[in-house]
């Protein structure tokens, strides 16, 4: 990805840099959300941007999720490229009608007359002991919405390239960040702006015995699992779809055709979740190549408990993936 002296950034810094560079490049990029200005955002992702770009471009709003997304939509159809921030994914259902029933239908219901270059950024806080109303991750709800794109970056490199790609995209994009990754992962990030187009998966690690398709935080668990498995003589390929809609089905299917086995892993609940779509994709595209049933590593179908040991037990980790693979080889 990069050569020579690599500059290492956190995931949060990478997103901030992507936002900053797009704001420098394009005057029509405007941020709006709760406490994103002087406060710097609940997770400090927008820290310093108010100082650099001023209050016309970094707009603090009242606590009004409907109006944040609604106003961003109105600005987008008038030609701005707004980036709205919804502090927690748990608050997004309040504005979901705006995103799903308004923004996602506008291109279509206008017979192609409207363009909606809108990004809604949000994050999920699973793993931070924030309990059942501040930890949710439910990207599958939004994958089910034609007209909307859904992006779930896992690394600093991807986060920067994908936020730039999302801002430049002329469609409404839901950009779901992962809070434990903000300052929990670091990685090489080129200084110059670069765009990762939406809909292209990334092979995070090559392998030949099993394919692990993982999303957001679970990509890191999958990579740890792959190392464990290597010690046991099992070669795992790790694929990060990076965007859930459009979903790069071909990369996933091709990998499974090669390995003959698949584990799919994501932080949302199992029933009706992302892993269901990933598994279905594999069944549709590579059924004849499967040497074992697909295993889904997903969150249990229950609300998220507060108590840290319980939350820890609730979450899925590298060991769950290792176990799943061991059960199929």
């Amino acid at each position: 990805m990069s050569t020579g002296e690599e500059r290492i950034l956190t995931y949060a810094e990478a997103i901030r840099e992507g936002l900053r560079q797009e704001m420098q490049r394009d005057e029509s990029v405007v941020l709006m959300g709760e406490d994103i200005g002087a406060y710097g955002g609940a997770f400090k992702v927008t820290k310093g941007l108010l100082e650099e770009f001023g209050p016309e471009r970094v707009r603090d709003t009242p606590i009004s999720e409907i109006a944040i997304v609604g106003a961003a939509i109105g600005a987008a159809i008038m030609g701005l490229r707004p980036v709205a921030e919804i502090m927690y994914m748990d608050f997004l259902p309040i504005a979901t009608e705006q995103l799903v029933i308004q923004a996602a239908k506008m291109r279509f219901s206008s017979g192609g007359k409207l363009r909606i270059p809108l990004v809604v950024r949000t994050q999920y806080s699973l793993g931070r002991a924030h309990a059942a109303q501040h930890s949710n991750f439910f990207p599958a709800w939004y994958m089910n919405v034609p007209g909307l794109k859904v992006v779930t970056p896992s690394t600093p490199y991807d986060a920067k390239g994908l936020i730039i790609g999302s801002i430049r995209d002329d469609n409404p994009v839901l950009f779901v960040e992962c809070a434990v990754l903000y300052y929990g992962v670091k990685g090489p990030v080129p200084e110059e702006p670069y765009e990762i187009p939406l809909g292209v998966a990334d092979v995070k690690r090559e392998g030949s015995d099993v394919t692990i398709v993982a999303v957001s935080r679970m990509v890191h668990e999958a990579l740890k699992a792959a190392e464990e498995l290597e010690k046991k003589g099992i070669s795992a390929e790790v694929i990060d779809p990076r965007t859930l809609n459009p979903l790069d089905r071909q990369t996933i299917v091709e990998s499974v055709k090669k390995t003959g086995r698949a584990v799919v892993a994501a932080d949302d609940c199992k029933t009706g979740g992302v892993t269901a779509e990933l598994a279905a994709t594999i069944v549709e595209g590579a059924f004849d190549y499967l040497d074992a049933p697909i295993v889904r590593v997903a969150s249990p179908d229950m609300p998220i408990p507060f108590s840290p040991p319980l939350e820890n037990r609730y979450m899925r980790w590298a060991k769950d993936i290792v176990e799943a693979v061991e059960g199929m080889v």
Partner: protein
Amino acid sequence: MAKLEIEIEEIGEVSVQEALSLGLTEGDLLRMYRKLVELRLFENRVEQLYLYEARIQGTAHLYTGEEAIAVGVARAIEGFGYIVSHHRGHGHALAMGIPPKEVMAELFGKETGVVKGLGGSMHVAIDPKRGALWASAIVGSGIPIAAGAALALRYRGERGVVVGFFSDGAANTGAFHEGLNLASFWKLPVIFACENNQWGMSMPARKSITCGRVAYRAAAYGMPGVIADGNDVLSVYKATKEAADRALRGEGPTLIEFITYRLKGHGVYDKATYRPKGEVEEWEKKDPLPRFEQKLIEAGITTEDRLKEVREEVAKEIEEAVKFAEESEVLEFDKLWEVVYA
């Protein structure tokens, strides 16, 4: 105890003479009359097409009785205004200059329709080049979108104003509260145009608007609240022009409650038996069309014969629109994939 001061500006009926002093010409008044007729005859024809000829499917919410609002607003913001419409939007589309044949073809679901037959009745007022930005079929949801469109104007320093249309029922949604508050917070050039037609389906506004008047709510958001006669096109024009001037001066949003009446049922198939006896008849006396006709004739601007000619011309145009719609084709299904994403 703290006290909330509520000051409402009431704009009653406006005379022709006053209208002329506000900058309208006699030609403008005649064009506005023609538009009122276009909106009325269009809806009359649509009602027939649904009920007696069964040539259109789905549903339609007729604008009958409320025409003065769309026509007065459109004239007041002509050249610099945008609108966000809602489910009762045929009149908004026509008032913004979308040709009747495109609106009719949309109702017929044809590719020559304003949005290619993909929107239908609840999405006819969408034509950005004519200032019609969007029409939400979800009650209230257009309100914050209108605010956001106004934000874009302000941000780019463009001279313009956005009118967000909605009715009394929408004034009870969360989107109304958030949208008005945000618009006031940012002092956006937006006019919240409440078409209080007395009913939200079968819910009377006199019950659902718990503080009595939609316009009172403006005080809660620190913006001017205005009540205008929504059945007098000149009252509508005056109220909208004042609000637009305020917005253009950078003084932020206005909430205008246009008092009007939904002369028909909620949708074409609704017989509206829940309405008290005599109510429709009372409001028919305030029908915006005869009222304006009378004013124009009394002011000596035109004659009954001339107005009759106008009505006949418009009726012919609408018949042509029906023919155009009927003869148009339906979009090929595979073309739909082209408009799911940009």
